[in-house]
């Protein structure tokens, strides 16, 4: 993986201090407006051909982060530098041509497809929008080629989404995202709704497409086992804050943040001997409300190692080495 960064050391995407805050009405009639800090100051770079995993529990802001990068949710503050240019606040007219290179795949495969369009129309839609100069026959030919590439029979071009299974619907979503040959795809929990036997098919397809088209990917998931298989680097989020960012092998073999350790140890392993004897860090309680996050380190209320300083000081993101960053006061002792 480091080979990827050494070979192409100019990031395709740089996210700097990105914040997404939502305003909520105050409690009671005269209550002050409250802020929900869904994403609260995230920095990372993404290199060409790289897959970055964004993991965390529900409500940690991982989907919001993905959408804010694509400007589908306007960021409150910070920069999203795409190919050397900050696109935060760019007007629609300027964003439109950039969207060709920035695509997204959603979690619920059926809900993300218009039930009244044929799958041919669905896959062709980005072409019709962005490459209107292409003739009808050319569009149809490209759609059929892409269908074959993602493992759908091209003769099914006139069928409707409800006629397909979940795994096939996800292939349709991937074909739609790939038809413009984008440079970056954000995959928001693309396999969470699929059966185990189908998950592996879709993960393999995404990896093949990545190699073939030199795609960069951001893979948002709560499933740390899948992430280990598909991602080169992994960013762990908790309540909108970065906890740890590291190369895959580094983070799984040597997690530095107590939250990462707990997350990894909580994933069940399909092997009775190992699963029943492994060491586990069990977190107590639930995720605190992002409207009223804990002071200091946001993770301290569930952290088994929390000390006084964690309640007062926000930990900085420290660089452990070239490919490992962590935000914990005590990471050196972990």
């Amino acid at each position, binding site marked *: 993986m480091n080979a990827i960064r050494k070979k192409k050391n100019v990031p395709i995407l740089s996210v700097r201090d990105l914040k997404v805050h939502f305003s909520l009405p105050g409690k009671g009639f005269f209550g002050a407006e409250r802020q929900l800090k869904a994403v609260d100051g995230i920095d990372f770079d993404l290199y060409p051909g790289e897959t970055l995993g964004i993991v965390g529990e529900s409500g940690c802001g991982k989907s919001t982060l993905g959408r804010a990068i694509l400007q589908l949710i306007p960021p409150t503050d910070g920069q999203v530098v795409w190919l050397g240019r900050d696109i935060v606040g760019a007007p629609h007219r300027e964003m439109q041509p950039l969207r060709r290179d920035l695509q997204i795949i959603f979690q619920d495969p059926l809900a993300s497809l218009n039930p009244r369009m044929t799958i041919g129309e669905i896959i062709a839609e980005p072409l019709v929008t962005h490459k209107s100069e292409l003739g009808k026959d050319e569009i149809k030919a490209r759609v059929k080629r892409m269908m074959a590439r993602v493992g759908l029979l091209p003769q099914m071009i006139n069928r409707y989404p409800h006629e397909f299974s979940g795994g096939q619907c996800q292939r349709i979503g991937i074909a739609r995202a790939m038809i413009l040959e984008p440079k970056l795809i954000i995959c928001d929990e693309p396999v969470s709704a699929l059966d*185990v*036997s*189908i998950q592996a*098919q879709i993960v393999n397809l995404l990896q093949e497409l990545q190699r073939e088209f030199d795609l960069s990917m951001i893979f948002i998931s709560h499933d740390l086992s899948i992430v280990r298989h598909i991602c080169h680097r992994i960013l762990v989020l908790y309540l909108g804050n970065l906890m740890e960012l590291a190369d895959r092998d580094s983070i*799984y073999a040597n997690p530095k943040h107590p939250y990462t350790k707990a997350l990894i140890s909580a*994933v*069940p*392993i*399909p092997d009775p001997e190992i699963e029943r004897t492994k060491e586990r860090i069990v977190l107590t309680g639930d*995720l605190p409300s992002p409207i009223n996050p804990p002071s200091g380190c946001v993770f301290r209320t569930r952290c088994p190692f929390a000390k006084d300083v964690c309640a007062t000081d926000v930990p900085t993101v420290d660089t452990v080495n070239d490919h490992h960053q962590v935000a914990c006061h005590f990471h050196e002792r972990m």
Partner: protein
Amino acid sequence: MTNHILTVENLRARFQTPDGEVEAVNDVNFHIDPGETLGVVGESGSGKTQIFLAVMGLLAKNGKATGTVRYKDKDILNIPSRQLNKIRGVTMSMIFQDPMTSLNPFLKISRQMTEVLVEHRGMSEGDALKRAINMLDRVGIPGAAQRVHMYPHEFSGGMRQRVMIAMALLCDPEVLIADEPTTALDVTVQAQILDLLRDLKKDFNTAIVMITHDLGVVAGLCDRVMVMYGGRIVETGSVRNIFYDSHHPYTEGLLKSMPRIDTASEEHMFAIPGQPPNLQNLPQGCAYQERCAYVMDRCCVSRPSLFGFDDGRASACFREDRQ
């Protein structure tokens, strides 16, 4: 006499649909002993949930179950719901994947929990409330005495699932049927709920049925496993047999296609080719034939029945046929 707490024989569940009859559960036989945890594994549509809805008399209106279901020595399949209510929710309870849809959003938790005790145990409202609070405490809900008076929407997902479990345990059931109880939860909360189920097994000798698609959950919790495919049991055996010496090609494929957090990744993940079968249109012969790496001519002609082995395991595959 056997001391099986639940015995299921030749269970079938059929549904009448506008497109014809669908056989969701076909010829299922198994039993559960006290204190035992049975894992039921399969993909969506494999019939794993429908078996236990049939057992509990909860099939949808267009569904019909046939066969035998015995609770201890009593036949309970298709008996009138007045008689069934003496068993379900009392000695046999079920919890579901989505706790929000299983709780009544208009009623406080206290009302929903005490109702069962007043109805089935003839307790007074006050005693019932005390027991409800105890039980919420037992499943790890902080401030149970206050929170019992809250509405379901005031609880988080993990807490709601705890409420469901507490509710299912109110009458000290001998069998707890858990249908994907942790699928909607985050892994750290899932770990808490699984610990809770392990404690129950230890403290109350409760028999647990764990319906899940997650083989990791099965590995950590279950004693025996039943693998379902296309509405039938394709393999059954002890958890060690299933994980370390699986016989059926589907079980083998499932285990190989599970991504594991404890192993470095390979270039390619193993994937079972093809799609899960359509129950309305099952092929002649074995339901797994189109996806099977070992398919033979006879698999497409006739369906293998379960071949049993000495140690209680069984596999429905012609590769086991030694005749």
